[in-house]
């Protein structure tokens, strides 16, 4: 039972272990730069939505950084598929597609949670006080799962590395900047607000920020995150099913 899930996870974690130091170091740099540039220097004395800017920023950095890591498995899957052909080993084995998706998603969640812990360390170092609401744990699990599943979907649909990079440039990067990670979305012009409210990151950022800063958690947003997670799980499954080596 669960051989597929265990196998996929074993493979991903074994490969991760060979480059863990490099990866963790690399993923820790950009949030630190954001913290210094926006939180420390520019944001000093500024308050947003009744919070010191740096307190507002930390949850945004958590969603941004964990999204980058969880969704980032798309890049690795690409290499696995097109360059090393290791993905064929999964396809040839007597395991279900669901297990492949769940195994890869679990790995994406693992990477996302690792970067989340890193931001908490920064929060501690920068003296930012956070509150832990149980909703946070649920939200971060859903958030990392849904972006890992999106990463799997994209990685299975694209035909080469180039297309993957294009998706990142035109979808992922704009989403990261506009979905309330660095500033409240309510300040956006109407047309952008419409776009942003169609993106899952907007809701996970709102819920995670509220759960860490003592704000009010909107149950509708939680529901929408669950829906996005279900949607991307389904698309990932569909994409793995149709993939041919």
């Amino acid at each position, binding site marked *: 039972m669960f051989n597929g899930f265990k196998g996929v996870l*074993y493979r991903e974690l*074994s490969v991760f272990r060979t480059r863990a130091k490099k990866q963790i170091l690399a993923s820790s740099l950009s949030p630190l730069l954001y913290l210094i540039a926006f939180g420390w220097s520019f944001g000093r004395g500024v308050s947003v939505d009744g919070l010191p800017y740096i307190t507002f920023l930390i949850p945004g950095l958590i969603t941004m950084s964990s999204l980058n890591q969880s969704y980032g498995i798309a890049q690795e899957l690409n290499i696995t598929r097109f360059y090393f052909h290791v993905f064929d080993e999964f396809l040839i084995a007597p395991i279900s597609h669901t297990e492949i998706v769940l195994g890869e998603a679990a790995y994406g969640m693992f990477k996302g949670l690792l970067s989340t812990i890193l931001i908490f360390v920064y929060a501690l170092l920068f003296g930012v006080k956070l509150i832990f609401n149980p909703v946070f744990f649920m939200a971060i699990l859903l958030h990392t799962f849904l972006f890992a599943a999106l990463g799997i979907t994209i990685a299975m649909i694209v035909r080469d590395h180039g297309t993957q990079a294009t998706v990142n440039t035109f979808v992922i990067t704009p989403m990261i900047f506009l979905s309330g990670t660095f500033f409240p979305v309510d300040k956006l012009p109407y047309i952008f607000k419409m776009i942003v409210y169609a993106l899952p990151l907007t809701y996970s950022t709102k819920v995670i920020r509220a759960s860490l800063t003592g704000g009010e958690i909107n149950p509708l947003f939680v529901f929408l995150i669950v829906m996005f997670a279900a949607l991307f799980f389904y698309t990932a499954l569909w994409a793995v099913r149709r993939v041919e*080596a």
Partner: protein
Amino acid sequence: MKNSAGDKDRTVLSVEGLVKKYGKKKALQGVSFKIAGGDFLGLLGPNGAGKTTTIKILTGLTKLTEGGVYYYGKDFSGHPREAKRFIGMVPQQSNLDRDLTAFQNLYLHTILHGIPKPLRMEKIDEALEFAGLKEYRDRQVKTFSGGMRRRLVIVRALLHEPRILFLDEPTVGLDPQIRRTLWELILKVNQVKGTAILLTTHYIEEAEKLCGRVLIINRGRIIAEGPPDDLKKDIGRYVLEIFLENRIEEHFFPTREEALEGCDHSCKVREVTLEDVFLKLTGRRINV
């Protein structure tokens, strides 16, 4: 280690009217054959004939357009997980994880194929021994030579004791000595373990040396089938090559004496190879 499933002469795989279309282009146009337990079947043909496509369909990596694939009489598309237990696959390009060790690569396979935990170590040791890679157990695969990688991929495919092993161009790009050691390993798999083998190749001598039966495939169709010797006998055992100004004329004879009779000046008599069979059937050489 004998033929543990006792499937000698039982049909392991039956392929019926395989058709594969890529858009309008037909890569396979009605390929049918059967493989029994312990068989060694070669799929011989030039690049682009449809060899890899056939193997990919039979292992579930590519979907077929028309036709049927049956393992022990059961429809592959209806029971993919059950059938995959019988299948071992050695793809054309090594699909090992270069950053992982030989052991880790094999261990992953034992998990994916549901080999019970208490048996895993024993099986992996046995596989490394069989491949002659025991001392390299904990080395990263990226430090391995091409021949070592190929051997590792082969024993990995055998870990779950498949009843049929697919080898897609197993010796392509290897130097002659390494090719020979690989042939020995492959023959050992077929004869000692009793695993049926389907091997694709465009090396004539490889098919002649290893395969009990050969299918010659060209442009997505099987154009001849039989033991290499029979195929050669069918066109004549000996070739008379007459060297003309701008081409070589070839004539086939059942005996050397008859061939020599037709030879007056610049000409040569030699034994027929599978390549001649191929050439006669298709009008083109394989290694071009």
